């Protein structure tokens, strides 16, 4: 690995980090605009043209608010909570392949930070770690509403992680690899996994909603019952980190869904593009395509949020344990039978 490669890699990490932050920032704007559209309002329109500077104004407000650490809180853990939340949100992007190999000035660069051979499991690890930010913050606040929110988050995440893992197993039976790069490569030319795993994708997206604490599963911050949920006691940028982490999680899980099921950076007419525009432009179009798919999923997240009301807590648990897990296991069995039959008859 030469110095130039390291420089490219470093640049890539920096760019992905910045993109995650910018996407998260403008997701808040998009959310408010979309909410306004769904409710027949105008939405933010004062800061800049069409209110485009609104996220910057919000950010400045967050930074300038007073930092409050409650007297009875555990100060160190109170700060660790939001830090952990934003950290786990940001490290998930390391294994996502953003595009094919790109040639920049004679250098071949992987548009992926690292291609570890257990990439899918890495994503799972990061997701399961994410709950600690919420739990530690909620407990350290020393407030019963925060604690209840934290406990809801923990049980919700653990319950839905199971069905998420089971839905992924069915996918892995078809791909035969845990590397996200190889999974993306396999979907070249309309071999998108959504066509082979529609049920698996449905389970996965429901679980993704639960894991990112989005409506209809945003019970941890259910304001009608718990004031503000786990971040009741938080103010200033520590609150900002929690809110930001949610939007980054949404971005990363959208990118993961696009990569695992919707072909990743593959698009129709890819080979023609590569032959006609060369190895620099074509991968960039692939990146743009992946981002377009990701943004569609983010829009879907918001669309659902402003359409479907929140679940009750027992309904949430029933859905997770009594419907999604049996369904996911049935999906695994079905996938096994179908792929074994197809192999038997020589497809």
């Amino acid at each position, binding site marked *: *690995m030469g110095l130039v490669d390291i420089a490219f890699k470093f640049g890539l990490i920096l760019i992905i980090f910045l993109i995650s932050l910018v996407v998260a920032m403008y997701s808040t704007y998009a959310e408010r605009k979309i909410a306004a559209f769904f409710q027949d309002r105008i939405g933010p329109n004062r800061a800049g043209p069409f209110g485009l500077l609104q996220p910057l104004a919000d950010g400045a407000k967050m930074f300038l608010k007073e930092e409050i650490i409650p007297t009875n809180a555990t100060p160190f*853990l109170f700060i660790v909570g939001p830090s952990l939340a934003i950290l786990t949100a940001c490290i998930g992007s390391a294994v996502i392949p953003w595009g094919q190999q790109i040639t920049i000035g004679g250098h071949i660069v992987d548009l992926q930070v*690292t291609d*570890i*051979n*257990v990439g899918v*499991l*890495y994503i*799972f*690890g990061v*997701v*399961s*770690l994410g*709950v*600690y930010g919420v*739990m*530690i913050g909620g*407990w350290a606040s020393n407030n019963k509403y925060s*604690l209840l929110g*934290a*406990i809801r988050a*923990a*049980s919700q*995440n*653990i319950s839905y*992680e199971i069905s998420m893992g089971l839905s992924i197993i069915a996918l892995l039976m078809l791909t035969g690899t*845990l590397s996200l790069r190889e999974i993306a490569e396999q979907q070249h030319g309309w071999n998108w996994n959504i066509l082979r795993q529609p049920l698996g994708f449905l389970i996965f997206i429901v679980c993704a909603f639960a894991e990112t604490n989005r409506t209809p599963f945003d019970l941890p911050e259910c304001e009608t019952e718990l004031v503000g949920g786990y971040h009741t006691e938080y103010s200033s940028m520590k609150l900002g980190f929690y809110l930001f982490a949610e939007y980054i999680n949404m971005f990363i899980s959208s990118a993961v869904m696009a990569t695992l099921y919707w072909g990743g950076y593959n698009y129709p007419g890819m080979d023609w593009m590569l032959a006609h525009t060369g190895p620099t432009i074509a991968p960039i179009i692939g990146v743009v395509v992946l981002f377009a798919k990701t943004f569609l999923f983010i829009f879907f997240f918001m669309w659902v949020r402003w359409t479907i009301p929140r679940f009750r807590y027992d309904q949430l648990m029933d859905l997770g344990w009594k419907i999604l897990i049996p369904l996911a296991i049935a999906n695994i069995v079905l996938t096994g039978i179908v792929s074994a039959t197809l192999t038997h008859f020589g497809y």
Partner: protein
Amino acid sequence: MGQGYFVNINMSTFYFIAFLSIFFSILVITAKNPVHSILYLILTFFTFTIHYILMNAQFLAIVNFIVYMGAILVLFLYTLMLINLNKDSEPVKPFMVKFAGVFGGGILMVALAASLKSIGASNPVILQNPDLGLVKNLGKVLFNEFLLPFEISSVLLLSAMVGAVLLATKDTKTA
């Protein structure tokens, strides 16, 4: 970055991580607050994950990360947060129990020291296949050589799960 990178990594990294493991495990048993104790336990398990990566057992590392750090310890933390342990609810143990505990611990230490004395110089275990920990190889080994123990342990886990469900719903009137 080849696999060799992980194998040839400097010994000093191992010693540093081993030191951290022992350090955090001591903090687990000395921490006054049970929630802090669990948080140290999480850090201890995280150092175990690094140990597995140093040994090139990537699958074991990530499973340790997901299952132990991500699920089991979350449940530990969950339970401890709910039962609200503090000084008032802590049972006061009689002097004799404390004495018996110290005495038993002392005897265990003597026995361990005696058995350690008779052990010769360290006998390093040589790894036959450095790539054994990768998912593909591990799966092949588990489902060929060790299929029977693997299946039996899965039955064991299943029976434990069924038992837990049975215990939880024993009283049909209140359930």
